[in-house]
C-alpha cells in the first residue's frame, strides 16, 4: 500500500497555489536577521559561547564513517550536538587522536561499569571523565540555548552517556579505538587532535 499512499499524497498537494521562493528567502533573511539581533541583545553571555563554537555542527557530518556506516540516531545526535572544542580538530580523525569520546548507547549498568573499569586500568589513558546522560543533556541545553526549537525536540534519553579521555600517546589511538569500539554497550569512539589545554575528550 505504500506506493499507493505516496501517490495519494501527491494528489493531495496538487492544488498547491505556489509561492515565490526568492521572495520567501528574502523575507526569511529579514526576519531571521531580526531573530538573531534579538538574541544577541537578550543573551549576550551565552551568545558569546555559541559564537565561539559556531562551526560545522551538523546532524550527520561529524560522525566517523567506518565503512559500516550504520550509526544509530542517538550517535548522530550526540556527535552533532557536542561540537568539538574550538582548539581541537573540527573533524574526528581515524588515527593520531590525542583525545577521545567513547559513546555508549543504552548500555546496561554492567556494560557501563565494565568499560569504566577497563579504562581506569588502561595504561594508555591519561585523564578520564565520565559524562552521564543528565550531564550530557545539561551541556546540550546550554550549548543550544539560542535554538529553543532544537532543544525542545531532543530528549535526555536520546543522548548517550560517554567516557571522555585523553591518551598518553596519540599513536595508540588507532588500536585503542578499534578495541573499545568492539566492547558491549559501546556505540562509537570519536577521536580528535587537541592541544594540551583543551577540554578532555576534545568536545565542549
Amino acid at each position, binding site marked *: *500500500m*505504500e506506493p*499507493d*499512499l*505516496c501517490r*495519494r*499524497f501527491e*494528489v*493531495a*498537494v*496538487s*492544488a*498547491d*497555489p505556489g*509561492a515565490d*521562493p*526568492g521572495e*520567501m*528567502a*528574502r*523575507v*526569511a*533573511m529579514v*526576519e*531571521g*536577521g531580526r*531573530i*538573531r539581533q534579538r*538574541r544577541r541583545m537578550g543573551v549576550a553571555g551565552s551568545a*558569546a559561547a*555559541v*559564537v*565561539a*563554537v*559556531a*562551526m*560545522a*555542527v*551538523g*546532524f*550527520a*557530518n*561529524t560522525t566517523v564513517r567506518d565503512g559500516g556506516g550504520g550509526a*544509530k*540516531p*542517538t550517535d*548522530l*545526535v550526540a556527535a*552533532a550536538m557536542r561540537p568539538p572544542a*574550538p*582548539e581541537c580538530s573540527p573533524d574526528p580523525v581515524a588515527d593520531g587522536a590525542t583525545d577521545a569520546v567513547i559513546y555508549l548507547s543504552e548500555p546496561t549498568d554492567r556494560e557501563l561499569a565494565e568499560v569504566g573499569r577497563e579504562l581506569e586500568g588502561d595504561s594508555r589513558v591519561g585523564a578520564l571523565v565520565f559524562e552521564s546522560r543528565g550531564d550530557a543533556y545539561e551541556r546540550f541545553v546550554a550549548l543550544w540555548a*539560542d*535554538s529553543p*526549537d*532544537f532543544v*525542545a*525536540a*531532543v*530528549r535526555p534519553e*536520546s543522548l548517550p552517556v560517554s567516557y571522555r579521555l585523553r591518551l598518553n600517546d596519540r599513536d595508540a589511538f588507532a588500536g585503542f579505538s578499534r578495541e573499545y569500539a568492539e566492547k558491549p554497550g559501546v556505540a562509537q569512539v570519536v577521536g580528535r587532535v587537541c592541544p594540551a589545554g583543551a577540554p578532555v575528550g576534545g568536545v565542549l
Partner: protein
Amino acid sequence: MTETVTQYRPAGDAGKGDTGKGGWGAGRRRAKAARDAEFTAFVEAAGTRLRRSAYLMCRDWHLAQDLAQQTFAKMYAAWPRLRTGTNLEAYSRKVLMNLIFDQRRRRSASEVVVAELPDHAGRADGSPELRLALVEALARLSVEDQAVLVLRHAEDHSIETVAMILGVSESVVKMRTARALTRLRALLGDDLDD
C-alpha cells in the same frame, strides 16, 4: 590591484577582535553575500516540499506558507552555524514539526492549527473529493501520527532520519508509523489497499 584578504580566524578567537562595529570590511561583506546566496539557493530547493508538507499537516495553504516562512527565518537566524555540513533538509523538517507541535500544544484541541474539517461542497477545482479525502483523514489523526506519515510516506525519509527529526528512537518511529497507517486505512475505508 591587491585585494584585501580577510584572515581566517580560528573559531576560538571569535568575538575577541570584533571591535569594528559597523566597519565591515569588504571581505566580511563578501562572506555575508555568499552565505545569503547559499541560503537563497537552499530555500529555492527546499521551499516547495517544505510548504507542501506543512499543508498536509494543517490543510491550509496560507498557513502552510506562513509555517514554511517561519521555518526559513529560524534557519536563517542560525545559518552561520548550520550551513556547513548540516543535513539541512532534516533540520528544516525538525523546525517545521516543532512549530506545528508548539501551535497545537498552545491551542485547544478543537482549535488545531486549522479549525474544523470543512464541508467542501463549494470546491469546484479538479476532483476535490479525491484530493481532500486523504488530507481530511490525516487531520483526524493525532499530530504525532500525522508527522510520521508525512515524513515517512509523503517525503520518503528513512526511519533513521525521521527518528532524528522527531527526536524519538527508531523503534518508536516504526511503531508509530504502523499504528498511524492502520488508523488511516480505517478512516479511508480500506481503499488504500490496492
